[in-house]
């Protein structure tokens, strides 16, 4: 064989033709997923560009001459009990809500996946210890546990993150553990061992990349759940400290003006529902795109 020729036919061409493309193709075939993606993109862009749309100042600037004003050209979504612009608060509050949700999702995914991987991979005593502890841990209803933690540590960004992480990591432990157990049974893992791969290499180059799809899907769907959960916590008075706007807190504040200024409740509700729904739509689309079973 002629190495020169080989170089020109394969090696130079060798790139990682991403599977992302294929996944994207399938993802974009699903109407729901595209709607979700577009919606979420709009939301994300608006939140990212919040500072350009309306400055943060407007979200915390109190103006008692404008207390509880109805939606108008000046205040698209009206004003709240402090005369603060509800539109600005919604935009900037979304940033808080979403960043907590994203961070909490991320940290719970990392913590849970690590524990799940350890449990699934090492098996035996480690596995039963982790799983039994988890059983006990999970028998305390999330909401009570999270509330106790937030009460104990005080309500602020970090503690909220911590509490949400603790409430959500358990999903991942089970998920990743079963993935690892399942993947470890695949012939290609055996093949890698037959080729002389060590455990580390197998985990890093075979098990993790294959488990990642499922984790990503789960993670996406979890973002929506956490947004809802977080708003519930806020509603119970365990959310972010004021004056920082946050959707759940806005709702919680709006509750007493339910009859005098119903729009204050309407817009954050809509924001939560639309965001959560759009993420769910994307998650479903992603799951279908990543799952070859549903192809036919």
């Amino acid at each position, binding site marked *: 064989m002629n190495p020169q020729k080989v170089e020109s036919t394969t090696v130079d061409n060798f790139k990682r033709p991403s599977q992302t493309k294929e996944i994207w193709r399938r993802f974009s075939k699903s109407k729901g997923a595209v709607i979700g993606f577009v919606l979420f993109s709009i939301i994300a862009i608006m939140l990212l560009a919040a500072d350009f749309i309306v400055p943060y100042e407007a979200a915390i600037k109190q103006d008692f001459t404008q207390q509880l004003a109805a939606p108008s050209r000046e205040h698209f979504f009206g004003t709240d009990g402090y005369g603060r612009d509800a539109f600005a608060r919604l935009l900037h509050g979304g940033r808080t809500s979403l960043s907590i949700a994203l961070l909490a999702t991320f940290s719970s995914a990392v913590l849970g996946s690590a524990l799940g991987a350890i449990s699934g991979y090492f098996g035996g005593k480690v596995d039963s210890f982790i799983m039994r502890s988890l059983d006990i*841990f999970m028998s305390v*209803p999330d909401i009570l546990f999270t509330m106790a933690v937030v009460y104990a540590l005080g309500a602020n960004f970090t503690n909220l993150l911590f509490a949400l992480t603790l409430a959500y990591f358990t999903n991942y432990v089970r998920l990743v553990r079963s993935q690892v157990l399942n993947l470890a049974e695949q012939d290609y893992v055996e093949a890698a061992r037959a080729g002389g791969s060590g455990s580390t290499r197998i985990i890093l180059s075979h098990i993790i990349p294959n488990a990642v799809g499922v984790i990503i899907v789960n993670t996406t769907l979890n973002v929506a759940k956490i947004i809802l959960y977080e708003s519930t916590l806020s509603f119970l008075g365990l959310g972010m400290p004021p004056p920082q706007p946050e959707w759940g807190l806005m709702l919680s504040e709006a509750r007493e003006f339910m009859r005098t200024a119903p729009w204050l409740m309407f817009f954050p509700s809509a924001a939560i529902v639309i965001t959560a729904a759009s993420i769910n739509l994307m998650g479903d689309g992603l799951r279908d795109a990543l799952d070859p079973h549903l192809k036919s």
Partner: protein
Amino acid sequence: MYRYVIKRLLFLIPTILGVTLIIYAVMSITPGDPGRAMLGTSALQADVDAYNAALGYNLPFPIKYFNYVKAMVIDQDFGFSYLTKQPVFDEIWPRFLETLKLAFLGVFIAASVGIPFGIYAAVKQYSLWDTVPSLVAFFMAAFPSFVLGLLFLYFFSLKLNLLPSYGIGSFEHYIMPALAISIPPAAQNMRFTKSSMLEAIRQDYVRTARAKGAAERTVVWKHALRNALLPVVTQIGLSLGVLIAGAVVAEKIFSIPGIGSLIVDRIAYKDEPVIIAGTILISICFTLVMLLVDIIYAFVDPRIRAKYSNTKG
């Protein structure tokens, strides 16, 4: 099978101990003490200390934990509320039943609405019966219970004056809270049932049933459904957790004397006996429900039943 059930019931013991430990640990990092909370700022520190000492509050954590467990195990005594001096059990039990009523009503609605719609959507995939409910479910699944609760309150009590806005007693009192907490899980159940059902309908044995000449109804109800419901049963069991979270909120909004809102309120007073006993009670309930789910599972699926009857000891 019964060996398995006993084994699972025995696992309640470490569960209770673990739950107690977790809650104790969390409470021990919470600032404040019951004495100060009860006696107020103007009380002398010495009095506060005496108050705490009388409660056995100042003991070191392990001893306190041990004493608690001992009392619980040996005397089935959960102690007295720091706040009301009532025996904890007397205080939490009626509220627990209230929450249970609400949560199970919620489970019932979530299941009885979600499952049939899910089945129908799967059977009539891509028809109006699928797309419309699926879309509705999509949005409903994204509603936090408290938003629903507030909206219901606004429309049904305030605007239409159809339903009572607070309290317990008649069936009407439970309509709004039960709906508020069960609609999101109902939507989840519907989505879950639908995909599970679609999966089941694809199976070979369903095709076999059709090939036998079974009518579509038989195929769906007799063959596909029982298999499709297996994962749904688990899902419903798990949704009890979601419902309990919803119940805390609903209890607040609709003024229902439930255990969730009780625990929330008592956290503010560091009323540990109530918080711990309440949490244990909910955990036991949760564990039992999960056990029930497994038993139902075994009941419906002979393969699982066989697995349990084979594991001896």
